């Protein structure tokens, strides 16, 4: 398999080599990008203000990939918010005329999140928040955020370096809130910036990468258990197997597996998983390798195969986003 010998940096990595080798340059088929540069963890970690991104943590985010936005202008966020607000109101009114700019029950805010980027080519992340006006209609009371979503790109150079002017690459879109709002916001972005959204599922292979990468990370405070959830296929009744490991044990195991600090290879991930499987088999006589890995959770983040992630630790936010950006790009290209 081509992924053999793929090298990853830790905790963040430059590029998955197992994506189909369709490096695109301007709509022509190019050569596969086989170079696996090892880029140090983003320096933005230091300058990032944890306060500003704190609200992104400990929430379940649903993942989407987004193709580049056409003619998105950072300077017009206020206008976009106004139009999006009117669009949402109009959709809720089933097509009746809605005045743009009047007070509506759903308030839309678009803003840039400056700290969430990796390379120079990355655009600032874009936050969209919908809040409902409180019923009391008193101006002082706080609006309640009913839905939020953000577009971001962390080391998304594979996409952005090939895209001409007028396109904005923010390939990863994360939402939290009612699906109906996601659909409204998504539809508006699709119409306005000619982009496409797709749910970003995470394959069992990628989940095993995640658990290996995250199990090896150092955490200052006492971390929660490393947990892997497997689903057994082809049963009349759904059967999930949860496999929890003490984080220190997981880290100890990983340290014996990993050869070069700062790099991960597919082989190491395989060995790590095989050890876990063997241990489980010794005790329960169940071959977990025959089941499907559907969820992993560690002290750093948790991820589900249907594309829902929860990031727990601000220090590793850029690293996790980098991996997700990479997955999103491989879905677009």
């Amino acid at each position: 398999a081509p992924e053999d010998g793929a090298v990853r940096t830790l905790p963040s990595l430059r590029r998955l080599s197992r994506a189909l080798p369709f490096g695109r340059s301007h709509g022509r088929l190019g050569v596969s990008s086989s170079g696996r540069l090892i880029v140090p963890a983003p320096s933005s970690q230091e300058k990032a203000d944890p306060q500003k991104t704190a609200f992104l943590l400990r929430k379940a985010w649903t993942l989407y990939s987004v193709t580049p936005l056409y003619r998105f202008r950072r300077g017009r966020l206020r206008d976009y918010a106004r139009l999006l607000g009117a669009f949402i109101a109009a959709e809720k009114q089933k097509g009746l005329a809605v005045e743009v700019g009047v007070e509506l029950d759903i308030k839309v805010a678009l803003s840039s999140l400056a700290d969430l980027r990796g390379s120079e080519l990355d655009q600032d992340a874009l936050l969209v928040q919908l809040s409902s006006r409180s019923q009391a209609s008193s101006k002082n009371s706080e609006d309640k955020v009913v839905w939020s979503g953000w577009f971001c790109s962390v080391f998304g150079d594979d996409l952005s370096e090939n895209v001409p002017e007028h396109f904005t690459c923010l390939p990863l879109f994360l939402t939290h809130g009612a699906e109906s709002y996601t659909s409204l916001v998504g539809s508006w972005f699709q119409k306005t910036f000619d982009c496409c959204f797709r749910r970003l599922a995470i394959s069992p292979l990628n989940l095993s990468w995640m658990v290996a990468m995250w199990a090896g990370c150092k955490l200052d405070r006492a971390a929660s258990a490393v947990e892997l959830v497997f689903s057994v296929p082809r049963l009349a009744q759904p059967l999930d197997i949860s496999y929890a490991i003490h984080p220190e044990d997981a880290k100890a195991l990983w340290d014996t597996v990993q050869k070069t600090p700062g790099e991960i290879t597919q082989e190491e991930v395989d060995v790590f998983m095989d050890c876990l499987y063997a241990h489980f088999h010794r005790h329960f006589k169940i071959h977990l390798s025959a089941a499907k890995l559907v969820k992993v959770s560690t002290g750093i983040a948790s991820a589900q195969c249907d594309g829902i992630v929860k990031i727990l630790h601000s220090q590793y936010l850029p690293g996790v986003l980098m991996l997700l950006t990479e997955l999103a790009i491989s879905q677009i290209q």
Partner: protein
Amino acid sequence: MQRSSRARKQPLHAHHKSQTDLSAWRKGGTIDSEKSLQSHQSANDQKYDSQEESLEQALSYFEKVQDCVALKKQSVPQKHLDAVESTALKQGLPPEGFEILLNIVLSGKFADTVNTRLLKSLIPASVIPEDSVVKAVSWLCVSKCSGNIKLLFLKWLITMFDYIDHKEQLHALYGIFFSFLQDERLCPCICHLLYLLTRKEHVNPFRIRRLLELQARMGMQSYLQALLSLYKLFCPEQVTITLPGKMKTYFKNSDGPWKAAITAVRQRNQGPSSLSQTLFLGTAQPRSRKRKWNAQLVIPASSANTNNLEDDREKCFYLYSTNESFPLEQLHTFPQLLQNIHRLEFPSQMGSVLTNPLLLHYMNCVKDESIYLRLYYWMGQMLQEECTWCMVDNPYEEEFKSFLETVYKAECFLQEGFSACEEFLYKTLPLWDGFCCRSEVLRLLSWIPLSSFSDIKSYLYDPLAQLFFTSSIYFKCSVLESLKELLQNWLNCNAIQVDLESSSLNTTLSGLVNGVAELVRFVGWISTVGLRLENNSMLLLYFILDFYEIVCDMYLKYNLPLLIMLPAGIFYPALLSMDSVNLNQLCYIMYRTNLVAAKENELCKKKMLQFKFSDQTYQVYNQYIIAMVGCLWTSSAFQKDIHPQGLHMDDELLSKTAVKELRNSFNIVYHPAMMGYSIQFLQQICPDDTTFNFKLIKGKKWNWYLEYLYTQGLKGLKVFIESSISRVSQASCNKAGNAEA
């Protein structure tokens, strides 16, 4: 129909003219699809015809009714009423029916039950003429009908609003409608209608005052608020009252009994093409099925890009003139495109160009990278998300098929493949079962662009070969057909490019030659194996030779310095084929692969000098020609054939077969593919002889026989014999014929 001429006699305002044209075009569209529908359902033809007839009778009856008529069972009016109802629900009513039926309904000639039934069956097949509605409103003013009918009519009008062909006169009747507000029962409906009709010029202080009075009298009614808020939107300075910002649904659902019927009629009339039809009109209808918001295989409707309307700087960059841009929604004809081409903009969603031929024309004119990139992203995501053999349990195969079909048609229109499509094929061919959406996928293959991309073998040829060898003969034929189209497209595109940039030719030419050569070799390989797998099937051979008919033109017709002979594994099965069509085609191919001319050409064209055809090609060509002439003409195939895979056999071995007249057995008289012709020929020249003495065909009769064969459509044989025989044998046809005898 006779009534349509009457309708046209009515004077039209000048500004209606273009709209009338448009509506005629729209009607044309529906009629066309009606026709095609009928051709599909030929069984229903008669039923439809008789239905049309009875509708016509019914309409002419209703047109002539003078007095009040009571409806009885089995009576004449009952029969006509049934006819109208059943036609309306099945096909919808033609535009000319509305005036007649609205007259009847609103003039109060029949009882309310009849009027209600008629109103409920007023379903348009295409459009509703504005005149009929205007007349109906005048009937409304004289109040001949009951309040119930008035109300139902207004509801009908609101539902049908979008189907009225134009609305200028209706806008002129704004005041009339407004006056109906005083009727408390009609008020909600009238408000809704006014909401649809209101333009800025309709708002004036009198009307605002009137609405406020009504509101004071009737309380805060949502329909009044709706109208007031619209007035306020148009003239905020005149409407000073504050309206509650919180909006509920203004109008009760007044779709009445019609909405479902309209949808049903539309679907039936437009058939499977409804998607493209509605898209072209820019009125994509919402899907009834619930689907994921981000993965609907709905090609977006073309609508103007609103994103940059407010931005002047952007405009200057994007448009070539300072004129305002032309709204895409109004672009319906080719002349419009030509007149406004300098102030057109691409739609906000590029995907919509696929179903809009005018925008595809425009795309051909504008060489902007971003339009291709937008299309690339959109199409790539659509194809991947909806691919029926990649996504488990995707139940929308028909939809995906029609999407692939649309993409293919657009590619044919543009004469150019989409890169998203190419990638999609490369990614999914290894997973394809060769069954799902077969013809659509194979057709898309033919637009894969020729590129210097060297991995085409592993992405295209390898998965295709696997499918080819393991699938039925029909699949094999379809693959060959697609690859033939692919080769043709490559050659055509290259021919255009060579004309355009003959200077920079040398850099790209070798890449092109290599790509084409690789394709031809691939087809040669799978064909050879395929023929063996299918026992030299004549059908398969036919498709293979079809491909080589293009190959043999590469040098002379397409100016490509490339000569590739068909492999022996194809040549000999074709030469010994039982079927005259294949033999004839082989002769034609050998005639077109005219290496003698090629060699002369090669010497003339200095720039082609770097591409020398290998001696081996000439050698193989000569061996083939010798084998063919030996077989068909000089009856010496077994002696003279020198191809290693050829027919050469020792005399000793041949004598052991104990077959008489062995030497002749593959000439044009005895060849199994030709035997039918020689028998018929013999029957014509000696009708009495039933012994079929083939030896009679010699000398003069040999020439007659040749003439006879040529008249039977064996043109390939003709050109081959005329060009090759004289050259090879250095003798006249006459002598050759005699020599054989």
